[in-house]
Each structure stands twice: as C-alpha cells, then as structure tokens.
C-alpha cells in the first residue's frame, strides 16, 4: 500500500495538503520546506514543477514558477534535490506539473526517477483521461504511483464516476471553475457543488483545492470532503522575510 492510501486509511478527515513550487523562493529551498511542512504537521505535500505557461494556475503560483525558472529550477534539478528525501520524509509527496516539460525530460526516465525518489503521486492538469488510460495507467500502477485527477463544477457526473474508478489515490476537487489563487470564503454555489459530490459517495477520498487560504476556509472545506489543499496562501507565507522554517511552521499551525 502506498503512503497516500495508508494516510487515508488511518486518518479520515481534516487532511491538510500544502502545495509549493520547487526552487522557490531560492533554488535549494525545496527540501527545507518539505521537512518543515512535515514537522509542522502537514499530511501531504505537493511540489510544483515550474513551467512558463501554467494554464491552471493563478498569479501567485505563476509568479513563483517564473522565479523558480529564473533560479534555474528544472525537472532534472528537482530529482537531484529529492534523491535522498525518503531518509527524512515519511508523508506522501506528489509532483504537480504540466505535460510538455515531462515529455521533454522523457517519460521513462521521469517515472524511474519518481520511483527512485519515492514520489507517491502525480497531478498533471493537462493530461487527458483517455491518454492516461491508453498510455500511462499501467506504467503508473506498476510503480505504485497514483494519478490524481481534477474535477470541477462543470465535470459531468458520468465523468466523475469514471475518474473515481481510475483513481488510486484521491480526487482533487477544484472548488470553482477558476485558476488557483486565494479567494476568500465559500459561496452558496460552491456549497451546493460540494454537497452534490458528497452525495455521490465516491470510493476515492476527495480533497478540495483552490480558494482555501486560512483556518476558517480549511475547516469549512473539511465539512464537505476528506481534506483540503492550500497553495497560493502557503506560497505567500513562505516568501515572507525571515526563516523559511519558521514561516512554514507558523502558517501550518495557524491552519491546524
């Protein structure tokens, strides 16, 4: 059983996932942030692989990606930073990014590296489900890598069922049809959508992402799902001046 399944087996609610961009604020901060997040009590960490054209990301994550690329971040460098990660990190770690840089790096090598470093899952917003089924599903499952699919308020129920069938980790529920970026509060419309998904009684755990920024919105989201994902607000917190370790811990303890 991989670490994601183990986590959801042992912990049924209030699962906190934080997202940050690899190589940001400084090139070699990746592992520091990862360690601090685990120590502070984050349940899952998602590491963004920076890309110059991130179609699904809002301004905060985009800006962090631009800075990371400027710092010299790349997929090759990220695997270099993560190669000994499992000596210190025991929580699930996922990589999030876009297809073209992975294509360019080479899929076989990429999957080998994921296995070597102990990556538990991937989130690739521009990977079509059909392509996943035909080209990647077997390869991912062979090395215990979960592919996390996104659903939105516009995703038809039959497609959600298909995603639920295919998911081996959790489902990423995008709270609104928007890019990432900390917008405060949960609207009535979103609530209706969360309830609709909850009533579908999916077999896979569900985490809510996009628009979760503080304890209030985190707790509210957890009423409807197994947990929630914080990206933009976490990135804003770690780019504050002072020690990264302290900033990470202060932020996470303000949520939990």
């Amino acid at each position, binding site marked *: 059983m991989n670490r994601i399944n183990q986590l959801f087996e042992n912990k049924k609610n209030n699962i906190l996932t934080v997202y940050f961009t690899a190589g940001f604020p400084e090139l070699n901060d990746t592992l520091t942030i990862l360690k601090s997040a685990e120590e502070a009590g984050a349940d899952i960490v998602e590491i963004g692989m920076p890309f110059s054209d991130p*179609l699904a990301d809002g301004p905060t994550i985009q800006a962090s990606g631009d800075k990371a690329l400027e710092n010299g971040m790349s997929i090759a460098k990220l695997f270099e930073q993560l190669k000994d990660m499992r000596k210190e990190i025991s929580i699930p770690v996922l990589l999030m990014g876009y297809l073209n840089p992975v294509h360019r790096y080479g899929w076989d090598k990429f999957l080998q590296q994921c296995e070597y470093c102990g990556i538990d899952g991937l989130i690739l917003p521009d990977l*079509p489900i059909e392509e996943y089924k035909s080209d990647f599903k077997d390869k991912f499952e062979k090395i215990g890598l979960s592919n996390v699919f996104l659903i*939105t308020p*516009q995703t038809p129920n039959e497609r959600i069922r298909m995603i639920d069938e295919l998911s081996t980790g959790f489902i990423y529920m995008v709270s609104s*049809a928007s890019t990432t970026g900390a917008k405060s509060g949960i609207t009535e419309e979103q609530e209706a959508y969360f309830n609709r998904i909850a009533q579908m009684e999916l077999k896979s755990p569900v985490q809510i992402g996009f628009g979760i920024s503080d304890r209030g919105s985190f707790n509210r989201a957890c009423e409807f799902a197994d947990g929630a994902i914080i990206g933009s607000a976490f990135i804003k917190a770690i780019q504050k001046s002072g020690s990264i370790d302290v900033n990470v811990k202060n932020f996470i303890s303000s949520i939990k």
Partner: protein
Amino acid sequence: MTVKEDKLTALAVENMPDENGFFGEYGGRFIPPALESIMEEIEQAYLEIRKDPAFIEELAVLNKHFTGRPSPVYHCKALSEAIGGGQIYLKREDLNHTGAHKINHCLGEALLAKRLGKKKIIAETGAGQHGVALATAAALVGLECDIYMGEVDIAKEYPNVVRMQILGAKVVPVGHGLKTLKEAVDAAFEAYLADPVTQLYAIGSVVGPHPFPMMVRDFQSIIGREAREQIQEMTGKLPDNLVACVGGGSNAIGLFSAFLQDEDVNIYGVEPSGSSLNYGEHAATLSLGTPGLIHGFKSYVLQDDEGNPAPVNTIASGLDYPGVGPQHSYLKDVERVNYEVINNDEAIDAFFRLSREEGIIPAIESSHAVAYAMKLAATLDRDQTILINLSGRGDKDIDFVVENYGKKYGIE
C-alpha cells in the same frame, strides 16, 4: 484506390481532423478539466450549426454584404514583369472589411457565441488584426468583447488598439514575459478559466485545443474555395504555386485547404526568421521547432531544453508565436507543404516593393509571403503562376515601418 490516391484523400479537409481533433499525431485537447466540458459544448454546437441551413445562410449574407466577399484575385503585372519570371497573383484578403482575413472566422465565432447564449467574447491579439475583427463581429451581433494584447504590441500597433476601443471592446494590456502574442494567449486562457460559462474564447488562429483548429480552418477555407475558381477563370488552370505566411497559420490553411489534393500545386508556407535563426531571434516554429505541447494542443513548438516555450522575435506581431497550427505540423511531416523562412529585412523590402510597384501596401505579416513569392518567381518560367494570400493590409504598420526603416527607402 492506389496508395497515392489514399494519401491525397487523407489530406481532404473533410477527413481531418479525426473525431478527437487529431491531425496525425498533432492537435487534440490537452487542457485543465475546467475547460474540458466547455470545449465539448463548443464542439457539439459547432458540429450542429455547420450543417444548419439558417446559420450557413446568415454567414453567407454577412460575408457578402458586411465583409465584401468574394475578395478579388489580382494579377501583379508590373511586379511580375520587373522580376522577369513567374506571374504573381494576389488573393486580396486585405480588401475585406477590417483589413485582413481574420474577419472570416470572427463572424463565425461571434454567431456561434450568440447561439450558445454567451454574453461576452474574448481573445488574444498580436498585430491587432484578430482583435479588430473580433471587436467588429462583437459589435455587429451584440456581444461584449475583451481583447488581451501584449504591451509591446499595444505600442507597436496602436492604431488597431484605438480601433478596438472605438468599436466598444476593452483592450486588456498584458505585461508579463516578452509582452507579446504568447503572453496574450496565456492571459486570455486565464480569463477564460475564471469564467468559461458566460464567455467564449474565440482564439485567433488555427491553434488551441480541439475544436478550434478545425473550426477556424473551416471558416477560413472560403479563401481557398473562392481563389480556386477565380484563378482558373483568369488563367485557365490551377495555380502552379501557393504562398502564404504562417504564424499560427489561419490565412495559410484557409488558402491551402482547397488545393491539398491537387498534387501538381506546390504549396509554400512562409515563417519569419526575424533577425536571425539563433535561439530567441525568430519565430520559425515549423522550420526549427520540435513536437511538443503548447496552449492545449500538440504541434511543433519552439522550446528550451526544459520544455518551456522559447522566446520568439519578429517584426510581424501577428507571426510572433512559438507554436503553430496542428494541421500545418501534419502537412510538414507528410511533406505536402514546404515551409520556408523570410527575415525581417526581406519582408520590409517586399513591403516597399509591392507598395511601389503595384500600389498595394501589405501587412508586415503578408509581406513575408510576398518576399518569398518574389524569390520563387525569379526561378520560374513566365507561363508559371504563383498565388499569394495577401492576408492583410499594411495601414496598421506604417508608423512602425517609417520610424524603423523609412530612411533606407527615402522617407525622411
């Protein structure tokens, strides 16, 4: 059927793309799930209206009475004589209302948006031609319109910015990265993701996720259908050569689509080699790129070693894009179309040459096609013909050209 006939049949417009939007291995739909169902909705609506007699009639009436179609084909006798080789003909898309071929698909997309009950139509623009055409179509059918445009292009193509504003559109400046066409596409996508329900993203070329490369091509294919009849009427035969500039590739596919199965017609797509063929100094995507993904579709892409789109540079804002239409990518691989390059200086030379020999000021984008056709004409016999798609007029470019190149051509 012979193998050769099979191959030619496969190129027919009605056989491309496949039901998933692929032209060979290119095209498709690689987008965040927030856009998936919206793209399916657009595809369904388009597949319905393109067979709907009422829609076909409405578009035909607008093409004739609003745009001024058919656009004429003109024989450049003086220019051909001066070169002393093949005969150069122009398909005069520059004479369309709004001054370029872009109006052909903008009318179609605006009518589609209206039918889908959208309130607003949004898009990116490079040179401003697509933006002006879309703002015009939006005004005509009664839709709001936001146009995303790089700050560099806003400064360079200012007359088109004012034109869009007069037409009631909002021009949204894009200030990240190189501040040109690619960044404008990024910004328009972002705005679309924020509200895909009440808006329609009318992408400005034969690029983007399925169904856009197919839909924009279909609306532009009127260029080729008209030209095929016109040139035969004038010369008694099909053209020996076709030439069009390629950025995203909408005007080129519009012309080429009617001739893809005519194997005796040589077809040339012309990309901008900018100031040089060094990394970052051109936008010759098919000539120097490699297969990859950009803005939700698979095509040749100019990219760095890490898979990020490369910086691009050309004086033609409308060609300044590190991707290219998936059908062009396919036509390159099957060697049906030859993709060539023309640099900044050659394009400017053609800009002045056509202006002064024929009294026609071409857009800088189209000047790339004219420049290549002039080179080609010099190698041909006098009874051979070249049909250029003169995709736009150069009014928008006059300030930029005179400021940067005027002196060389006797303008103080």
